[in-house]
């Protein structure tokens, strides 16, 4: 009997194989042109960040007092800023800060949030209550205000901005993670795991965590944009990254003073922020669609 079933199921096998997971994912994910464009933007940004010294036409910190607030020209396609630094080069270098802020702060937020959420959801009871009320408390303070207060408390600068933004994003992850854990915990495969006598830690790491990833990936992608935006906001208030460092937020802030005479000084870094954030948002949405099992194929 056994062999016979195997034989007959072979017929089926080829059909099942056709709808491969990865292929479907890629197809749904890349279905829209905007997504491809967004990926391209993100890719360019990453390339800029990594190879900034090779790409940028000028040293972003080099001041040229003969070229102060110059209008766009061939040499300086986006003009120069108030102390004669090449705006294009600074934007290219600014991608480093943006990438760093996005990556590290989201990494901090997600790692802490995931651990808290996992723990909270799995442990339940008092631990859960305490963690979640603390998260609620953090959530009750608008993130930007939280960040402003944090920065005020711990000081500005790249490092602190990153830590601050990371911390203020933690509750989102903790909550998402907890919700996921609660849902997955109830699922039969975790019950099965428990019935086999598997330990909680093993379950959390091997089964709960991997199955929470999809929404997390989406959130992480979206939060890149959130972090970059927040950095710009902090810099606008003068609480962000300090001036000599090329960062889009502080460039907007610098250029903002010349809005009337040299609008490009704030438009250019502003556009960089907007484009990158839009790109991350679109990619995040596309990921959501592609990872959503209910939307299988319908797009």
């Amino acid at each position: 009997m056994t062999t016979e079933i195997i034989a007959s199921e072979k017929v089926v096998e080829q059909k099942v194989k056709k709808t491969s997971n990865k292929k479907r994912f890629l197809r749904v994910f890349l279905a829209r042109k905007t997504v491809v464009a967004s990926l391209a933007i993100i890719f360019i940004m990453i390339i800029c960040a990594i190879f900034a010294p090779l790409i940028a036409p000028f040293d972003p910190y080099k001041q040229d007092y003969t070229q102060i607030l110059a209008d766009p020209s061939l040499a300086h396609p986006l003009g120069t800023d108030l102390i004669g630094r090449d705006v294009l080069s600074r934007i290219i270098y600014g991608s480093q800060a943006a990438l760093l802020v996005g990556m590290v702060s989201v990494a901090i937020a997600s790692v802490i949030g995931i651990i808290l959420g996992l723990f909270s959801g799995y442990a339940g009871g008092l631990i859960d209550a305490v963690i979640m009320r603390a998260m609620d408390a953090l959530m009750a303070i608008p993130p930007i205000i939280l960040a402003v207060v944090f920065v005020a408390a711990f000081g500005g600068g790249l490092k602190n901005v990153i830590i601050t933004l990371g911390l203020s994003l933690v509750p989102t992850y903790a909550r998402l993670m907890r919700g996921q854990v609660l849902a997955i915990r109830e699922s039969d495969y975790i019950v099965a795991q428990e019935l086999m006598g598997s330990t909680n830690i093993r379950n959390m790491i091997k089964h709960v965590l991997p199955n929470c990833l999809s929404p997390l990936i989406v959130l992480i992608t979206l939060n890149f944009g959130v972090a970059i935006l927040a950095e710009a906001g902090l810099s606008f208030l003068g609480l962000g990254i300090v001036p000599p460092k090329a960062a889009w937020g502080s460039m907007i802030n610098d250029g903002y003073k010349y809005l009337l005479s040299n609008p490009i000084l704030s438009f250019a870094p502003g556009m960089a922020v907007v484009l990158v954030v839009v790109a991350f948002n679109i990619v995040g949405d596309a990921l959501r669609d592609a990872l959503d099992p209910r939307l299988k194929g319908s797009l």
Partner: protein
Amino acid sequence: MSHLLEVKNLQTQFTVDRNVVKAVDGVSYYVDEGEIVAVVGESGSGKSVTQYSGIQLIPTPPGKIAGGEVLFNGKNLLQISGEELRQVRGGEIGVVFQEPMTSLNPVLTIGYQIIETIILHLKMNKKDARKHAIELLKSVGIPDAEERIDYYPHQFSGGMRQRVCIAMAMACKPKILIADEATTALDVTTQAQILEMLKDIVKETKTSIVLVTHNLGIVARYADRIYVMYAGEIVESGTTKEIFSSPKHPYTISLLNAIPRLDDPKGRQLIPIDGIPPSLINKQDICAFLPRCPHRTAACSFKPAPKLETVSGSHYSACHEDITTEAIKEVAAARATSEDSSADAFNDNQSDNENLLEVKNLKMYFPVTKGILKRKVADVKAVDDVSFSIKKGETLGLVGESGCGKTTIIRSILRMYEPTAGDVIFDGQNIAKMPKHKLRPIRRNISLVFQDPFSSLDPRQTAGSIVGEPLIIHKLTKTKAEYEKRVNELFELVGLNPEWKNRVPHEFSGGQRQRIGIARALASNPSFIVCDEAISALDVSIQAQIINLLEDLQKKLGLTYLFVAHDLSVVRHISDRVVVMYLGKIIEVADWKSLYENPLHPYTKGLLAAVPIPDPFVEENREHVMLEGEIPSVMNRPKGCAFFNRCPMATKECSEAEPPLVETEEGHSVACIKVGKEVRV
């Protein structure tokens, strides 16, 4: 002669991932006034899409009606739109959907939802419409309709909601009522009540019913005519008797062979339909059933898809071969003997074997809390003082209506819940009160097979590591090679190709997934396996495969099963002894034979009577005693006998004391004072 509804060569397609799914591929059928027409077929065969196409309920896109006509009263429904279409929907054709839980709008009262339809189609004013709605609710058997009309859907049980749906669909006295798996999600008893009610409706109102189902028993009991669908096509049609007496299409034949019946001889071997239903993507023009057909010939693969052809009178079938009764028997016999005859295997069970599991006075209460401080105000006595035992090597069936506490028993035995009271003695050890860490090593001896093959497997783990998980947890293998060997062994044991180890569950069919679940359950070499509705979620054609597998494994490995199911035919087929539960208590225990042939408790009787048998001739002569009413809430269990309010035999004394479970004859116990007395006298 013109029909009330005539569908001609309907073609409905979906575009999925840039592939065309021919969900309905040239279907023609008709419905006449006042008849019950059944459409049967397994999941995905296009039954629903066929029905919805007619009233343009297909989501477009991705759906598209690519061709055909749907003539209703001479109008082609596919060509109308706007006001005219809306008039047909709800006004002329009513629909009752499968899922009563989701097909009512949760934020509107049922009254609103019914009245809305009435006002729309019957142009009544609000007050009259409300009156009419109350009438309707009464007519579908909703008690206290005046009050309940203002309830929200979640305040009703599943059966009640389905009645509401029917009331809604019948609100404007449609000419046709489409019941799309309207009873599939319900208990047998509720299912029977609702179908009886529909039958009465046909009689009274001359409304025709299209009964869409996969349950052949229902078809046999209620339908006048049948259409059998397979892969988007009608493969056989005819009157109920024609089809059941001389099924012509191999699919129909296989289907009938695959399902257990209440009146089967115990030893009958179920003959599964191999493989899985075909994918409808890029269908080719050959017989769709070909890969699974036991009667296929070499020639079939070269011929275009067969067309429906007359067999006799109104009986049509779409098969290249003319399959004779002998051929059917031959194939059946050949397949049955391909395994060692199991007819006598059942008697092999040494009934005087020692108990593997003994459940004594098990109680599982859930606290009901109320108020700000979540004070405990009452208990849900989900399992209340239950005792039974399972002997080594036997299969104990556990049946009862939804909510009677079957799953709770299992979970308490497995210590997923901490039982409120009672003992669970497994292999000489009381596991009910054992500390969790001590319990861990014992767990390898007990395994659970889940109901839902989709959710019980970690979607991100490979099949191989799912099956190997218990080996790692209990450290059962020492080397990597040993581990691999054991996993391969397990795959082969449940009939899966070990080469598929690296696939994820998503890449398997439902039946295959259930096999993975079984392989996992077997990995730690347990002696005891609990199956909670292990086959309920599977298609009829697949169920037989799994049932056979379970029986096969039991013989090979000497396993003991606790088999929970609501399908009484399946339980009968597989069990040695059966426990019947009602509202958290056991009301009857017996070996299968005495239970099915001589049920004592009026509830057991009612339960059995509600199960339709897929044979119109048998059904014709069966007495249809319906269990009235619904299972009461566990929270306010009636004082005396819990079954008191539904029992046809009940008298006043029944309501006074709880009847104890007494053994009336060897191995047959029942909890009913009436029956107990009768026998004792």
